[in-house]
């Protein structure tokens, strides 16, 4: 837009701010500080750490607004810590807005991550009035503090000591003394006490707490799993499927209720023979999960072609096992549910059912890209880590030439979704600048990403981006206000626009990756 004249300093600054922010938000969609196929965890942590510091230092308000941008929980947690640790020189009005955003975002985080954010206050030696108020407000908003006290006892104890909290009822003495206190009126606390002596009481506790005690009492794994099943969250039940099968226990588990990408990961983790035998059931579960994701975040697409990368590198890393492939697979099901005219091209081409595919072979993006363009869809989605090598750079060239010479009017929108954060590039690796690239962690975020793509495309500037972030922040604050109006314990009836039916599940899914 500034092609024919030199931009004024203000315009240039706006442009730089726009690009900086896009890089940041984009990184926050994909990066979790974990190892990737092409780079190790340390590189990842350093790169994302730099981005956070840079954006916080230069664009503090926008940085806080990013809490509502639909970025992943790892980065939301990181923003919260950064904001709380660097609280100085923020004026009064700004501090009030920031405080409200922090409280709202914290309440929406899965509890393990929220507690970890608060625990970071102690590690980073932050103990000011605002920080203590935020801790208090968070704990006030918890549905069942007694349950938290059992499940996150160590974190809660550290927090109580650090922020000089006066915890309600027996919670205070429970976190301090645990099972050594003789008597508790709260049934859960009493169960925790008894579980140190009696194997029966173990089954009244949350699974993660019970597991350690069961191991100490040498309870048979199969017996334990079958009896504790009622206390397991959905994610825990999903995660222990395989180990339960090995131990010889049967765990009831509703596949279709699992979040889509999580389910894809689960399916890909199954042995091929199991996948083949159970194909119909797994396929139906994926479809149902995709439909449910769309109910929560509606999306309707016209004609779509997806190019899905299942090359060797989609195996991910030890920490993010098969995630790139799972994202591709989940995108496939989500798009299928959102469009009546969708085509899917895997590369390398696989024969057989998509759920039977595994990561293997080279990355040839050029051939499926040409195939996709030949169909002239309204939207062309590429899910790939961006490392094309057969031949290298060919898809980039094709996309560039196509944009410039064959489709300057953008009849076909092309979007590259990248499940991998490339540490050395401070963002997801692009195929070519002609194709906007967005980081993605869960395929369910597709509606958010498609909305965000307009900013990456260069069609909208920093003002529009800021307005968009403000609107999202207002929505987040609204949700938080409604939740508080209903009083503690209202999280279970959260409004539909907030995804994640079970926050604990989601949190643990993410934890399970590390």
């Amino acid at each position, binding site marked *: 837009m500034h092609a024919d004249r030199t931009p004024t300093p203000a315009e240039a600054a706006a442009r730089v701010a726009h690009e900086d922010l896009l890089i940041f938000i984009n990184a926050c969609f994909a990066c979790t500080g974990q190892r990737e196929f092409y780079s190790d965890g340390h590189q990842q942590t350093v790169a994302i750490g730099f981005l956070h510091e840079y954006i916080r230092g230069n664009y503090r308000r926008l940085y806080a607004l990013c809490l509502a941008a639909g970025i992943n929980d790892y980065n939301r947690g990181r923003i919260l810590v950064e904001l709380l640790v660097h609280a100085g020189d923020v004026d009064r009005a700004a501090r009030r807005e920031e405080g409200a955003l922090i409280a709202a975002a914290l309440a929406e985080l899965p509890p393990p991550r929220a507690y970890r954010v608060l625990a970071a206050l102690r590690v980073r030696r932050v103990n000011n009035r605002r920080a203590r108020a935020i801790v208090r407000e968070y704990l006030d908003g918890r549905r069942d503090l007694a349950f938290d006290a059992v499940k996150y006892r160590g974190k809660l104890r550290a927090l109580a000591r650090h922020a000089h909290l006066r915890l309600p009822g027996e919670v205070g003495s429970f976190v301090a003394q645990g099972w050594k206190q003789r008597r508790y009126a709260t049934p859960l606390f009493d169960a925790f006490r008894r579980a140190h002596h009696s194997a029966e009481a173990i089954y009244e506790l949350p699974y993660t707490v019970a597991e350690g005690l069961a191991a100490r009492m040498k309870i048979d794994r199969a017996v334990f799993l079958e009896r504790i099943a009622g206390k397991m969250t959905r994610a825990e039940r999903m995660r222990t499927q395989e180990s339960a099968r090995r131990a010889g226990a049967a765990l009831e588990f509703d596949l279709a209720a699992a979040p889509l990408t999580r389910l894809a990961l689960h399916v890909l983790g199954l042995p091929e023979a199991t996948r083949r035998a159970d194909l119909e059931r797994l396929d139906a579960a994926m479809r149902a999960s995709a439909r449910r994701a769309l109910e929560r975040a509606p999306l309707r697409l016209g004609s779509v072609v997806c190019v899905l990368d299942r090359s060797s590198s989609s195996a991910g890393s030890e920490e993010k096992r098969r995630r790139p492939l799972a994202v591709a697979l989940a995108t496939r099901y989500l798009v299928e549910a959102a469009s009546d005219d969708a085509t899917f091209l895997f590369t390398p081409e696989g024969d057989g059912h998509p759920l039977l595919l595994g990561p293997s072979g080279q990355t040839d993006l050029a051939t499926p890209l040409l195939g996709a363009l030949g169909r002239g869809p309204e939207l062309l989605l590429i899910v790939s880590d961006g490392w094309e090598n057969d031949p*290298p750079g060919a898809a980039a060239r094709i996309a560039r030439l196509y944009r410039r010479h064959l489709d300057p009017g953008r009849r076909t929108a092309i979007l590259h979704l990248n499940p991998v954060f490339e540490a050395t590039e401070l963002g997801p690796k692009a195929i070519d600048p002609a194709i906007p690239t967005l980081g993605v962690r869960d395929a369910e975020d597709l509606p958010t990403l498609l909305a965000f793509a307009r900013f990456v495309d260069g069609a909208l500037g920093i003002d529009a981006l800021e307005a968009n972030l403000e609107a999202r922040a207002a929505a987040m604050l609204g949700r938080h206000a409604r939740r508080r109006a209903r009083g503690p314990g209202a999280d279970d009836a959260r409004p539909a626009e907030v995804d994640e039916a079970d926050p604990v599940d989601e949190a643990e899914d993410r934890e399970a990756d590390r």
Partner: protein
Amino acid sequence: MKHPARTHGLDLGDLEPAPSQVFGAIRLIPLLRRRVLGDLRLDRRRLRAAITVVGVDGDADDPTTAYVGFIPHALVVSWEPDGRPVAAQGAHLGARHFGGKARHVQLLHRMAKRVDRRRFRFLPQELALEGYLQLHFGGPTVAWSEYSAEALRRGLSPRAERVIPGASIDGLEDALRVFEIHPDQVGVMILVADVLAGVTVFPHPEDYRALHRALLLDFYGDVVLRYGLYHPPADLASEPTTIPRSLDDLRAGLAAERAAWRDHTRLFAAGLVDVPLRWQSVHHAGPFTLRRFLGDLDPGRESHIGEAIVRDDGTFEYLKTFRLGAAQARRAWLLGRLAEGSWSLDACAEAMGIPRAELIERLAHAGFGYLLKPHVLGEAGVR
């Protein structure tokens, strides 16, 4: 079938190069084979001894010449004479023959040895290296007075060379880890800073997949070590010169780009494809022959040595090459000149067109000073 003793370069035949994958300074070019017969398979046996001694000449248990080195593994070849695919993979071989308990020194009989009727084992790369080390190993054939008594009595023994394990090459491990193996891939060309470090071909895509990571255990020339620290390889992609009018133009461009990879590969492999090679057959098994080759060892050019299992029709079922460093090539070349001149220093210096003192100096620099008497070295000013 009789294979030729001399060829001009390696003919990669039906091995089709695919576009390369670059990571850091390493470029890996996959070699694909569309039609795999499967009547020859390779299997790896890890040797766990720190040092392995291989009897090369003489009695099996009391060799007159031995090859001593760190040898990480041996390859076992299984084959079927009538072209049927090999069924049982390394079934009953196991620890009975080698491997087993870790030892400090392990003794093996010969570089290539029959294990049973349908199997033989050989030591990859060591076979080619031994071929190179034993060049003129006997030492002077005429007892010229310049040579030390030791040289006349024992020849060049011990003759030693240094090689670089793949694990020491900067970035090779990462490059192998992130390399995406093609389904039809049977081989790979490894280039470091766009210099050919070696070519490896296995008989079957499954063998390749199994042995891909073992490329890290291979040896490479010392040039490769230094090149690994240099600049990343060139970007070979070229922008098209014409403006595409349709998707068909883009398709044609892609096809042309793929075709261009064959030429790129030929260019990279020029040091192996365009030089005269001398071959020696080591072991015969049905339609297959285990052979090794030496390049022309011209110190002014890339020098490669290697070994191959060649089918009767000349196709490579197995191939592994090793790039000699310039100093290594120079040593072999000097020995070759000496041997040509019946080990006479005067005749050799004259043939090379250099003064006798310079030849002595060169020999000393190449590490062959021990062949000459001290006063001969002194005469050339070498201490």
